[in-house]
């Protein structure tokens, strides 16, 4: 099963709309509550990043029996140094983003904590692609 959503950069009043739809879908599909919780937090962090840092993005959610694949592909400034962006506390968020309660540099580390695999690729000046996978069985959800 595959779902796609558009994400508008800069539009904070809509930020989270796509993640909220995915949450409802996963609940309907009876995915384990703990898995849903972690995925939705990661997805929302990634969605807010597109809204806060990029211009336009597409969210793709692909669910099968084994795993959930989440991809956020955006057109935006890209990330110069991905290792640095992954560091807790690193942020280039604007004052407007900070006024919304974001921009603490905690999003990417939090995504990493909540999914089984995270892959970020980026081309500065063009955009960023964030790929996350969570396994229905045998992933982080079962270790904890």
């Amino acid at each position: 099963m595959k779902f796609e959503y558009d994400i508008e950069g800069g539009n904070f009043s809509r930020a989270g709309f796509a993640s909220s739809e995915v949450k409802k879908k996963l609940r309907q599909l009876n995915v384990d509550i703990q898995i849903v919780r972690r995925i939705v937090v990661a997805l929302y962090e990634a969605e807010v990043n597109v809204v806060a840092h990029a211009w336009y993005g597409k969210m793709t959610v692909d669910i099968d029996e084994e795993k959930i694949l989440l991809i956020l592909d955006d057109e935006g400034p890209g990330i110069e140094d991905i290792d640095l962006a992954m560091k807790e506390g690193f942020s280039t968020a604007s004052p407007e983003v900070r006024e919304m309660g974001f921009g603490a540099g905690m999003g990417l580390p939090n995504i990493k904590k909540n999914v089984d695999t995270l892959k970020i690729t980026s081309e500065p000046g063009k955009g960023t692609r964030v790929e996350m996978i969570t396994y229905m069985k045998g992933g982080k959800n079962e270790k904890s």
Partner: protein
Amino acid sequence: MERRCLIMDLQQMANIIDGRVVANGNESRTGYNTAFASDLMSDVLTLDQENVVLITGLATLQTIRTAEMADINCIIFVRNKKASPEMISLARESGINIVECRYTMFRASGLLYQAGLNPVY
């Protein structure tokens, strides 16, 4: 001194902080025993616990969204911050309760702690 921990319902919490329930989107059967106070949504998203009450002075639509994503079903707005009609309707849709309160975050948190709500850590 031994701390007495309690499970409270929405109205009990509102009474303790002289607050007003403005959205009743969730009839929690279990009640509340833990709270977290922050204006930073980035922080809220790192919580692992469930059924946590969020005490915040950041009253935006994004606060409601963040609560929804973090499985938080009760928000207390402090410092006399008001929930807009849009926020209230999103809260109802998402099964979230909202309480408005005139006190500072420190005072509201202190009163709820004293009354028996636990911190997250």
